């Protein structure tokens, strides 16, 4: 028996209180020398011995109740010998990206993971993390290695792409503050690291890589596009020899023809498909020996995939009023996505109807001039129905008008400008938010932006996603109906800051607008790793929840790239980091964590509380009979 919080056992000293009271307040039985004792014969009298026994029972029950309360607070658990001897943690990070979907590959990965579990140092607790686009702790470190093996057995390969960063940080978190090893069981896809990735891990977390091996030759469908009345499929051959390919086209669920081609070794080629008309199509390539997940591609015929973003300015002339914002939106992003941009003045917007405004995937308000009551109500309705609005805090934005437009309780007060030397900097407060997720490895670059003039923005339903170095909120996310509202406490045109001349500006604008757009104006080609909630993480033709539009969900073709890392290259992206002073000896120590897990599993404190309540109930009954 061990205790998670043994100091609470000191509370058991309180059990002495009834004892002390019993001893201090114990009064000898009142004795009366009486003449008519005969009259008491055969009365329902209480014999002294019985009464004394009852008092002792009461005393014992009271002491037991207090002691049980102390024990419950001390969180007892039955410790196993392994947990008691835990000296560290081994976390198996098992790659479940689709690059392991080739026949036999994931089974080998699982076997290697089981081997790693079996080979974990004696005294280590063992946990399992699976990873692809994200990472999940499927088995927290535990002394029970069978649990870890079961977790490995239960894991399955998915359709995600490899992301080592997520795997390593999650595994390091699972290890906690103690010594540990992270065993990464992966096929060492080079695409698993983003360019310039550098993951800081605690120095006490030792990373080892278990290579699943070179992937088999693979054919991957990496793209489909429309050319005239035909579809063109792009096929990549990741293999040492040229291969003939056979493609099968299905339109609206019906076979629509086949096409053949030949792809050189480690090369790609376009294969024209038969002419077809319909709503959606899927193309499949025969590759029984290679990766399975990239053998199919889905496509939706129809509209442009470029969401339309409305920028509200003084005159609606984006070249003059919102040049930087316009150019940032028109620039191609990292994944090829871009936006169409439209400009409008506040007065013009006020003359629109909800249908016209509803064609826009997001709205950026850089001016409220001319935005009358009708315009404000129009924008507020747009937000309530799920639209996304970014409100800036430039000189042309009236805070009250903007608040009325977005329908959120937002206040904004402009602060006087400061000199360049006093300029504030930007620091994300929530790097996990979609807006800043892209900057996770380069978050410091946002700090290079200098803000000469800002506004103090606040709202009861808002929380800060980023702050200035002086503490004021820089970017607020507010709740308003079903829509998304962001408030930027400066401007986006370089009048009050030098943001537009920084390399982070374009990705920032893209991420902000992508967040505002959500699924509303998104194109019809989505990736498995960036699906809105409610859709399964599988490729296919799906209907967006709440939108009724059919979209094509495909795997990220970067995972089909056969480029591999060496163990040294893998390790080069890992930077040992010294633990923060408050991290050492933290509750994440494996021994303590194991103890916590055991305590949580057993939940003995509940039984202690139940026993205490039972003791008090019995005590009440006996006490009632005594008095």
């Amino acid at each position, binding site marked *: 028996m061990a205790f998670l919080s043994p100091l609470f056992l000191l509370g058991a000293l309180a059990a002495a209180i009834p004892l002390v009271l019993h001893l201090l307040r114990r009064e000898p039985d009142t004795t009366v020398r*009486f003449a008519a004792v005969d009259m008491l014969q055969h009365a329902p009298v209480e014999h002294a011995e019985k009464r004394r026994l009852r008092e002792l029972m009461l005393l014992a029950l009271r002491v037991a109740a207090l002691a049980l309360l102390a024990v419950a607070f001390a969180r007892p658990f039955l410790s196993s010998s392994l947990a008691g001897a835990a000296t560290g943690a081994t976390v198996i990070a098992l790659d479940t990206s689709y690059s392991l979907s080739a026949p036999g590959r994931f089974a080998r990965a699982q076997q290697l993971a089981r081997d790693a579990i079996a080979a974990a140092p004696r005294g280590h607790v063992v946990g399992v993390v699976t990873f692809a686009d994200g990472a999940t702790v499927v088995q927290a470190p535990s002394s029970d290695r069978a649990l870890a093996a079961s977790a490995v057995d239960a894991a399955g390969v998915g359709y995600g792409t490899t992301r080592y960063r997520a795997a390593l940080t999650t595994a390091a978190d699972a290890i906690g503050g103690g010594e540990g090893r992270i065993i990464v069981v992966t096929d060492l896809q080079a695409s698993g690291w983003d360019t310039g990735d550098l993951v800081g891990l605690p120095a006490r977390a030792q990373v080892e890589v278990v290579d699943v091996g070179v992937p088999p030759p693979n054919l991957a469908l990496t793209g489909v596009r429309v050319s005239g009345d035909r579809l063109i499929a792009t096929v990549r051959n990741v293999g040492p020899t040229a291969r003939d390919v056979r493609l099968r086209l299905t339109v609206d669920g019906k076979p629509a023809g086949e096409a053949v081609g030949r792809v050189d070794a480690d090369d790609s080629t376009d294969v024209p498909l038969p002419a077809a008309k319909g709503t959606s199509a899927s193309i499949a390539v025969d590759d029984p020996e290679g990766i399975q997940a990239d053998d199919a591609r889905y496509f939706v015929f129809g509209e442009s995939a470029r969401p339309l973003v409305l920028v509200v300015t003084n005159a609606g002339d984006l070249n003059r009023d919102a040049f930087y914002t316009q150019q940032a939106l028109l620039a191609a992003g990292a994944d090829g996505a871009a936006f169409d941009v439209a400009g409008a003045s506040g007065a013009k917007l006020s003359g629109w109807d909800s249908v016209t405004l509803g064609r826009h995937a997001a709205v950026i308000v850089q001016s409220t001039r001319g935005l009358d009551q009708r315009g404000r109500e129009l924008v507020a309705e747009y937000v309530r129905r799920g639209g996304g609005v970014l409100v800036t805090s430039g000189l042309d934005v009236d805070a009250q008008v903007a608040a009325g437009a977005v329908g959120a309780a937002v206040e904004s007060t402009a602060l006087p400008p400061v000199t360049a030397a006093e300029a504030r900097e930007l620091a994300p407060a929530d790097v996990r938010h979609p807006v800043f997720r892209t900057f996770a490895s380069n978050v410091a670059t946002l700090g290079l932006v200098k803000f000469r003039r800002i506004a103090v923005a606040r709202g009861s339903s808002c929380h800060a996603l980023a702050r200035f170095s002086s503490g004021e909120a820089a970017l607020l996310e507010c709740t308003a109906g079903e829509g998304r509202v962001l408030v930027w406490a400066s401007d986006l045109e370089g009048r009050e800051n030098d943001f537009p001349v920084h390399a982070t500006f374009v990705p920032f604008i893209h991420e902000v607008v992508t967040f505002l757009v959500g699924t509303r104006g998104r194109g019809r080609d989505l990736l498995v790793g960036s699906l809105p909630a409610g859709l399964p993480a599988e490729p296919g033709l799906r209907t967006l929840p709440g939108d009724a539009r059919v979209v094509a969900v495909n795997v990220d073709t970067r995972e089909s790239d056969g480029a591999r890392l060496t163990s040294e290259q893998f390790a080069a992206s890992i930077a040992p980091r010294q633990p923060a002073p408050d991290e050492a000896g933290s509750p994440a120590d494996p021994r303590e964590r194991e103890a916590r897990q055991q305590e949580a599993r057993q939940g003995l404190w509940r039984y202690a509380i139940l026993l205490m309540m039972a003791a008090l109930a019995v005590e009440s009954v006996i006490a009632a009979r005594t008095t």
Partner: protein
Amino acid sequence: MAAGGPTGERRFLDPGVLARLGTLELKARTIVEGFLTGLHRSPFKGFSVEFAEYRQYMPGDDLTTIDWKVYARSDRHYVKKYEEETNLGCHIMLDVSASMGYGSPGMTKLEYGSCLAASLAYLMNRQRDAVGLAAFDDRIVTMLPASARPGHLRGVLVTLERLRLGRQTDVSKPLHQLAESLSKRGMVVLISDLLDEPERVIRGLKHFQFRGTDVIVFQVLHIDELQFPFERATRFEDLETARHVTAVPVVVRDHYLRRMSELVDRYRRELGAVGIDYHLLDTSQPLELALLAYLSTRSRDY
């Protein structure tokens, strides 16, 4: 009657006040003189009937004392005046068993009983009745034969003063013992808590009845014994035996009071049925009430 006036009760001495008086003689004199002073306005006139003289009727005199024969002869109203004399032999039997030791300090049942005995003795002696004393527990421990001599009262009072608590109660045995020793009719006053087997007590008292002796019984109990006012769990130890009972009073009170009521009712019922005066006294009651009861019986029978 003493208690009949509107302020009658207040004329009686509270036993608590009585307890602070000095000797038993002083107590007895205080009680009796005060009591007799009260009797001036009562129908009790004394018992000795030796004629002394005639006196002319004065307004306020009792009409029953008018000698109508003299009136017929002289056409004047004369009332008879009598000189007291005794023709009664009275024995006071005082229970001194250990159970009589119960009570509050200064006024135990024994002290109350002694005071009552002394008062009765004083009253009897003042009326020229012969008074004797028998103190008993399970036997007669002290015996003073009945006498009307002036100095005898002092002997009785001194004896009462010197009485100490005795042993276990056995009322019937001394009763039979005294009944056998009495040679002529008279009166016996029994002062006891009667916490004994009622059947045996009543049989002993009937023994006096059989021998033509009138009996007055004063059962003296403490208020605690009548009301059982205890609250906390208590160990009750018998004053006469080693027996003890630990009881929670609230639990046993009803049972106790029922049994005590049954005992008192039985004495009252069975003694009344054979013509024995029975009076229940608790130690908080004024002693004059007991004297009144005695005088009532005395005037009825003699």
